[in-house]
Each structure stands twice: as structure tokens, then as C-alpha cells.
């Protein structure tokens, strides 16, 4: 390459692609990792539906002070149907998270009373 070469040749030589520095990966990835950390908003996004479900279960269950099956059965048909759906949703979750000035977790013991689990959630709020 000499100064006398035509412009396109000079440009082709001077503007060749280069390798990106390894630092670029960190700079792209680090902001992502920071935003991936669970934040309060994410906790609320997950916790609010769970809290609403727990409140509904408690509303039904509190018709019987002992949380007995008879109390559950005596609940209004619509509320009973709603609570059944919620219980079946809860069954699919091994860990139930709820929110109370942060996030508390409550694990439902295998074979435990589903209504009690719902009430426990509600009472943590």
C-alpha cells in the first residue's frame, strides 16, 4: 500500500474488519444479569395472584372455624368452585411464594391440609 494507490484500495486496506475485544461480552452480559435478579416488582407480579388465591381460600375456609371438610362443603357453590380451581393450581406448585414487604416463602408439607396452607399464606400478609 502506497499513498499513490487509488482511494478504494486505500480504504479497503485501512478499514479491514477487526476482532472485537473480549470485554464486549462482559459489557453486554452484565447489564442483563443485573436485571435478571429477582426484584420487588417481580415478587409482586408473582405474589399478588397467589395472595389473591390464598385470600379466596381463607374466605371459604373461615365459614368453618375448624377448617373442617364440612365447613368447606357448606360454602357457597361459586366460591367452592373457585377455591377448587385454586387448590388444583396450588397442587401444581411445589413451592408457594407470597409477598409481605418483601417475599416470604411457605412450603406446603406433602399430604398437608390444603386449606391450612392457603390460610397460612393469607396470615403472612
Amino acid at each position: 500500500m502506497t499513498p499513490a494507490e487509488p482511494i478504494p484500495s486505500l480504504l479497503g486496506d485501512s478499514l479491514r474488519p477487526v476482532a472485537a475485544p473480549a470485554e464486549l461480552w462482559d459489557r453486554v452480559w452484565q447489564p442483563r444479569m443485573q436485571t435478571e435478579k429477582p426484584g420487588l416488582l417481580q415478587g409482586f407480579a408473582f405474589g399478588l395472584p397467589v395472595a389473591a388465591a390464598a385470600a379466596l381460600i381463607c374466605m371459604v375456609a373461615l365459614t368453618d372455624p375448624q377448617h373442617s371438610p364440612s365447613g368447606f362443603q357448606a360454602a357457597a357453590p361459586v366460591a367452592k368452585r373457585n377455591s377448587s380451581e385454586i387448590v388444583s393450581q396450588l397442587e401444581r406448585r411445589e413451592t408457594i411464594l407470597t409477598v409481605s414487604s418483601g417475599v416470604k416463602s411457605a412450603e406446603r408439607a406433602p399430604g398437608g391440609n390444603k386449606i391450612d396452607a392457603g390460610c397460612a399464606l393469607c396470615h403472612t400478609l
Partner: protein
Amino acid sequence: MQAPAQERKYGETASELRELVARCQHGDYDAFAQLFAGHKDRIYSIALRFSGDPTAALDIAQDTFLKLLGQIQNFRGDARFETWLYRVVVNACLDHRRARRRWLPLIEDLVDRVRTGLGLENVAEQTQLRQHVRGAIAHLPADQRIAVVLRYTEGLSYEEIAEVTGVASGTVASRLNRAHHALEGRLQDYKGGSR
């Protein structure tokens, strides 16, 4: 003698690239990592050749990939992925230029050095000529500079540059022609001084 086989990156064929993009759109970070590996050099090169500054190039490349990650849901496959990606990096370059609005007076510095004869004996002439050319490019208007970088760093055709920048091929030809004339004028000093 056969040249050693180069390591092939996943995503080089059109179908692999489509699959990678689809996986990215579903939030697959491994796919994004592969997409990053396949395009980081060209994105950084465009940014570096446009800005003339490694630090600014890193900023531009970072912005480009963050925009890519944020906007990949909007990619519908109407254009080629590379064309879409070039648009993102070109916009990042222009955004960065708007944000900084200050460029190092490389050419004046180099012209002074040529005129006074400083540094010529210690620096390889070819390296200096390249620096001089890059310094001259930094003085081109942004639209001409983008056309030059896409043409000479990426080897895009006039039609491809037109698609990326959203202008007619004739406009691209005109911009490149004006850029060539401007560079020729700026390099006259160097040519005269180095003889």
C-alpha cells in the same frame, strides 16, 4: 497442502440463523450467546471504523447488542437478519455521534506530524498511512462515512447499503463518490508530504 479447517460457528447458514433468531425471541440466552459470537466482530468493526475510537466502538457495540436483545421480538423476518442488524448498528453509530458531537482532530495532528517530519522515522509508514486514512474518514459527514464503512469494512454492495440505510442505490453511489473525492483532497497533503 490443505489449509486447516476453520472452526464453523452455528448460525452461519440461513436456516440455522432463522432458528437462532426464533430461539432468541423465546428468551433463549444460549441462542443469544451464539448470535453474539457470530456477529460481534463485524458489529465492533463497523463501530470502530465509524467512530475511529476503540472506547466509543465498545460503547456502540454494547448498545447495538442490548438493542438487539431488546428489539429482537420485533424482527419479523421481512428483511434478512444481517440487514436488520446492520440497521441497528448504523442507528447506534448515529445515536452515539449525536450524543458526543466531538471528534478528535486526527487529521490535523497527522498533517502536522507529516509536515514537521516528527514520528515518521519511528512509525511504520504503512501504519501511519492507515491512520491517516482513518483520520480523514472521521471528517466525512455521517451519511458518507456510514456508506464508506459498510462498503469497505463489510464489503456490502450498493444495493445492500441502500437497503440498510433506507435510500436509493443511486444515492449510495453519489455518497461514495463524494466521499472518495473528499478523501482524495484530504490525502493530498499526506501524499505531498511523504514524497
